[in-house]
């Protein structure tokens, strides 16, 4: 049913449909509305779950770890500092092969402290073993949560999923979203059947010490499983389409006017909505431009990206995060896609925008297209204010 909702409320509705048994979270802007909505649903008896108000994000992640280990579906949400604080537990959850869904309301990282949106937080955890999906709008947010549980709990996968949505832009933005019917969700997402769980009837030991004779295979196994995830997400996306009608194609990327494009921007998250507007505008003027939206950042869909971009002459990668001291994170993946390949874009330019919530406007995107010329640029910051910079520290 279509409702006009705040993004956070949409998340809560989606999570309610997934019926987690344990929810645990610690408040941090801009995630707060998500957990407040869920708390109200539990208080009103709309959602039968144990709501554990913990004393830190580290404990929030630990509580849901314990719950999933005991065989109960769980949920948590966080942002920025909270995500980084719980990162120790996140690596642990992936290593323990426990299925879980976490909503990351993308927000900039301290210092300096900044509560507005960019993607540094989740991108900084790209090595953690979590599947990462980036949503462009609140409909995708709802749909990705349902798909996330389905992917996460599959017996061949058993890896946790992070659904990333831009803080404030999506969490606090009001959009018209279709909240699926509970009966249909129950068909798409059956109850969690644990592959292993803590149960006195059949005791198991989880989280053992693995010395050099045993550790490496655990990492290899996760790496191989990510290859399975690349094949599994398209299946889940097709199943989703057949039940709910919305088609995410392979669920890994979205191609927007890329077929005959001469210039394509690659990006993740809500900025794609803005880019689509500019693409429409420039296409009207006869310019051959397009957008490649990355949905699945981990596992990274190298072969899909290669398919889409190999015949495009100029590619601009728009990062909403930085990897300080090296090339921008998404740009690195795009460049890696084509290394050693016969067919590849002539130019792959890298741009950084929107850090700390600096608005990415239609003009900013137009500027990216303009700057996408024969001269390749590397980590160029869009809309930077040079007047705030000085070479030497002083009054």
């Amino acid at each position, binding site marked *: 049913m279509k409702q006009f909702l705040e993004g956070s409320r949409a998340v809560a509705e989606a999570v309610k449909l997934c019926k987690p048994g344990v929810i645990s979270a610690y408040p941090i802007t801009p995630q707060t509305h998500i957990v407040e909505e869920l708390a109200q649903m539990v208080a009103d008896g709309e959602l039968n779950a144990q709501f554990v108000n913990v004393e830190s994000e580290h404990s929030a992640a630990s509580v849901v770890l314990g719950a999933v280990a005991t065989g109960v579906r769980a949920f948590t949400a966080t942002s920025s500092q909270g995500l980084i604080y719980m990162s120790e537990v996140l690596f642990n959850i992936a290593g*323990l*092969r426990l299925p879980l869904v976490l909503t990351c309301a993308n927000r900039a990282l301290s210092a300096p402290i900044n509560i507005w949106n960019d993607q540094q937080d989740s991108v900084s955890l790209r090595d953690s073993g979590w599947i990462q999906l980036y949503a462009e709008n609140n409909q995708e947010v709802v749909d990705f949560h349902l798909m996330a549980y389905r992917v996460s709990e599959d017996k061949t996968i*058993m890896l946790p999923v992070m659904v990333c949505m831009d803080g404030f832009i999506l969490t606090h933005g009001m959009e018209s979203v279709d909240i699926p019917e509970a009966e249909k969700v129950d068909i798409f997402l059956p109850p969690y059947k644990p592959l*292993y769980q803590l149960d006195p009837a*059949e*005791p*198991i*030991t*989880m989280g*053992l010490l*693995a010395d050099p004779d*045993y*550790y490496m*295979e*655990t*990492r*290899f*196994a*996760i790496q*191989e*499983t990510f290859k*399975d995830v690349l094949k599994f997400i398209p299946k889940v996306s097709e199943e989703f389409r057949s039940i709910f009608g919305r088609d995410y194609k392979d669920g890994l990327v979205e191609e927007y006017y890329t077929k005959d494009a001469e210039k394509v921007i690659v990006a993740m998250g809500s900025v794609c909505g803005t880019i689509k507007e500019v693409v429409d505008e420039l296409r009207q003027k006869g310019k051959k431009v397009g957008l490649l939206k990355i949905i699945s950042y981990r596992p990274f869909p190298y072969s899909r990206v290669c398919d889409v971009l190999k015949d495009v002459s100029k590619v601009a990668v728009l990062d909403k995060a930085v990897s300080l001291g090296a090339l921008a994170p998404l740009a690195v993946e795009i460049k890696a896609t084509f290394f050693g390949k016969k067919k590849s874009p002539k130019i792959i330019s890298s741009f950084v925008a929107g850090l700390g919530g600096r608005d990415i406007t239609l003009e900013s995107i137009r500027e990216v297209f303009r700057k996408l010329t024969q001269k390749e640029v590397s980590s160029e910051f869009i809309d930077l204010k040079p007047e705030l910079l000085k070479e030497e520290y002083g009054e």
Partner: protein
Amino acid sequence: MFGPLIVKPSKAKGDKTGSWRVQLRPKFLQKNCIGCKMCLLICPEGCIQGKEKNTYITDYNFCKGCGLCAKICPKSDIIMIEETSEGEKK
């Protein structure tokens, strides 16, 4: 794909830590034992077993020879002897 992840305790046999003994091992005289069970309670390995008086004995596959049982026995019915001496070993 899964690597080493979970262990079912029924499948775990334990290391044969009896091989750690180099100097001493306990000898259960089984003469004046009063069945107080202190040896069974205090053993860090938990490898001492017994039911009534004079039936308590350790599992030498696991006994590390720490000497706690001999020290705690109120009747001195357990003594520590040289590891290399004859007598019950396995």
